[in-house]
């Protein structure tokens, strides 16, 4: 008796795994270890988080009385919605599996392009959303701590200057940290993909 036959006989009654493997929906749910598949799962989690954050910002709006802060939070909500929509579009574009219709070189190029698309979206988020969120947090924190209205802070040149410096500092810092994380997580893999493409060219 071959190993496969032994294994099949050991399969207990009621074990639905072999039948489940014939089901497309079951297969679609099995996690792939391809980096692009992992990226797609992480992107989905980010989109869900962005939805909750946007809802939280919208909830906070009802408690704000200063038009300046409302404006800032409103800008944040708009950016968040833009992130959600563009993130969702990218999510739909990313493949769930390899594409046999592609040649090897096409598949490699497709993966590299997908990563680059995701990265370009991350850059926009890191350059706009994080600093604006930090500035809004700075003002809201000041209001909560001191009880003063935002105009109190924004009419003080020193505080304005500090806020401006904070945003100027945070924009490259957020971009640099994002880039560092991106290189750490995907740098080696992308280098291998690009090297294979070069070898095939």
């Amino acid at each position: 008796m071959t190993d496969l036959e032994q294994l099949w006989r050991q399969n207990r009654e009621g074990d639905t795994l072999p039948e489940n493997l014939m089901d497309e929906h079951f297969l679609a749910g099995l996690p792939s270890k391809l980096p692009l598949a992992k990226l797609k799962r992480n992107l989905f989690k980010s989109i869900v988080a962005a939805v909750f954050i946007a809802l939280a910002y919208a909830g906070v709006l009802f408690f704000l009385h200063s038009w300046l802060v409302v404006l800032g939070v409103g800008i944040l909500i708009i950016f968040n919605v833009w992130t959600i929509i563009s993130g969702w579009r990218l999510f739909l574009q990313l493949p769930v599996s390899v594409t046999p219709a592609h040649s090897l070189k096409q598949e490699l190029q497709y993966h590299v392009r997908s990563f680059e698309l995701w990265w370009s979206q991350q850059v926009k988020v890191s350059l706009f959303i994080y600093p604006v969120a930090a500035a809004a947090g700075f003002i809201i924190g000041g209001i909560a701590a001191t009880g003063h209205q935002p105009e109190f802070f924004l009419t003080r040149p020193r505080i304005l200057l500090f806020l401006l410096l904070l945003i100027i500092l945070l924009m490259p810092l957020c971009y640099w940290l994002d880039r560092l994380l991106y290189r750490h997580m995907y740098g080696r893999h992308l280098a291998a993909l690009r090297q294979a493409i070069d070898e095939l060219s």
Partner: protein
Amino acid sequence: MYQEIVLQSWKTYPAFRGDAKFSTWLYRVSLNTIFTLNRKVNRVQYGGVPETGIPGRSDESERLYKAIRTLPETERAVISLHLEGYDNREVGEIIGITPNLVAVKIHRIRQQLSTLLKDI
């Protein structure tokens, strides 16, 4: 890696239209999966006498396969397809390069392998 290839094969099988050979389709899925997985580069350095080989393989075949494993992965893919009996056009379609480039690569790989086989 094997598990991922099997998973990708299962997931993409519904899209298999049968207009190419099944082996060609499976080669495409396998190659595309292997090259897009995040893994360490799998090149082997051999020094000295090789140990016991795979049953059923002659010593010469074993030496050839060991020599192939020392090649860069893209060249390994090209020569493996060639050894499986695919012509230059078919190899080119699977890999994504022109048949002429396939011929040039195979010629270079053969030269490399003959040098390597002297050392193994």
